[in-house]
């Protein structure tokens, strides 16, 4: 699939986040985050729950409305009130922790519905694109099934194929393996690794440290709504400099050795 490979790397978009702030009432969950993702780069966001990493990710395609700061995605300024949000989101694929497949549609229809209704592709073209992407995630024969007939790992792979069918220039992953049975985590991570090697820009919120270390170009450690430490994946995970990062990684990587 060299053509897809090349075109994907060429089309890949970056993200520039500057001084992003988000509050729920008086609770400030993002306290001025700045973060750049270059086209084709894979960045993993790690940190304890409640650190704001999912909120940050959801701000990138405006599922959460930021209270301050700017976000540029591809050619769009997401935080501009005049921006065409729907147009912007067509280029930003999103994969959720809970899959969020459409249960009333077949696997194939899940992957064609937005192509047909949003991109106005004809049905045959949409189905061809959907089949291609279902094959990419190893589910080429599953088009006629309904989501509730699939395992969690299979559902998440369909969700990835659904996002890819829009031919996005950037993919956002919000804890894509956190709701999965342990034995199906690997199949989803393998697909994500393949995507990364094909040159897709990826921003991934994850607790899978082995994946982050192996696949990410950069790892960003967040805690309490700020970026505590960031750098090359091997450095942040293998040799963290900040005490909070060290503490977090010790607990994640070696859960049985915690001082109580």
């Amino acid at each position: 699939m060299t053509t897809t490979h090349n075109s994907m790397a060429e089309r890949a978009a970056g993200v520039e986040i500057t001084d992003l702030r988000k509050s729920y009432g008086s609770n400030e969950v993002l306290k001025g985050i700045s973060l750049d993702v270059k086209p084709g780069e894979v960045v993993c966001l790690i940190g304890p729950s409640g650190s704001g990493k999912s909120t940050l990710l959801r701000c990138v395609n405006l599922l959460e409305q930021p209270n301050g700061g700017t976000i540029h995605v591809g050619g769009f300024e997401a935080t501009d009130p005049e921006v065409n949000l729907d147009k912007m989101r067509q280029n930003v694929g999103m994969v959720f922790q809970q899959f969020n497949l459409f249960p009333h549609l077949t696997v194939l229809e899940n992957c064609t519905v937005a192509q047909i209704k949003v991109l106005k592709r004809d049905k045959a073209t949409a189905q061809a694109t959907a089949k291609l992407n279902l094959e990419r995630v190893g589910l080429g024969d599953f088009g006629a099934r309904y989501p509730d007939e699939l395992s969690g790992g299979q559902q998440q792979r369909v969700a990835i194929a659904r996002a890819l069918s829009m031919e996005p220039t950037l993919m956002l992953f919000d804890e894509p393996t956190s709701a999965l049975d342990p034995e199906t985590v690997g199949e989803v991570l393998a697909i994500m690794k393949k995507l990364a090697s094909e040159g897709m820009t990826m921003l991934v919120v994850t607790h899978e440290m082995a994946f982050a270390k192996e696949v990410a170009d950069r790892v960003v450690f967040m805690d309490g709504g700020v970026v505590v430490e960031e750098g090359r994946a091997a450095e942040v995970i293998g040799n963290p400099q900040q005490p909070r990062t060290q503490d977090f990684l010790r607990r994640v990587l070696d859960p049985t050795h915690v001082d109580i």
Partner: protein
Amino acid sequence: MAMTTSQRARLSKTIQIVLFIAIIVALVLALDWDKTRYAFFSFEELGPMFPDMIIVGLKNTIFYTVISFAFGLVAGLLLALMKMASFAPYRWFATAFVEFFRGIPAILVLLAFGFGLPQAFGTLWPQPVNIMLALGLVSSAYIAETLRAGLQAVPKGQTEAARSLGMPAWRAMVTIVIPQAFKIVLPPMTNEVILLTKDSSLAFILGMSITQYELTKFGRDGIQSLDAGLTPLVVAGMFYLVITIPLSLVARKFESRSARTKR
């Protein structure tokens, strides 16, 4: 003498059956059978009511119900969306509307449309239009609540996934949320049709021409014109059951199906 549990259970059942039979026998002996038969079962006197009771009465009951429901469904969906709107005046209007039409008896709404409208504005349209407007408005208030509950039962992640694929809000609603909500509300909606079928009988208090009669009006007319006691209404009741029992069977089938799978 001690009894085992099963012996005691059998004795209890026997006593219940004997009591039941005793009550039936007492009723049979106490009732004046000639009068009872005349009041409720004078079927042989009903010849003049047929076939009009079916081709006019039953037909009109079904017609009024179906059109009122269609109207109630459209207005109810609109009200449900208004209740969920971010613009507050929409929510206020919808809430006031729903509370008003759920809070007053349907028969008052029918009187307001059937008598009030013609008094205030002259005859605007044939009487059945007033009936269907009144029934439609009343049912829209109930349908709005059912639909709102159904729409809110669809997980928020569904809308988020649809919006993330670039769908505008209305498209996510039409293509993703409403079809799922529809399956959730099918059983309560079927019950709504059953209630509406019965409520259409309230139209009998309004004046109308004989071709506009529905079942109950037909029955009441029969009581006055025939020498058959209340039998015409008994027959009307049977026709209602002919409509409502299949509907509840359908509702039960939907319920068991949606219980089996989320689809």
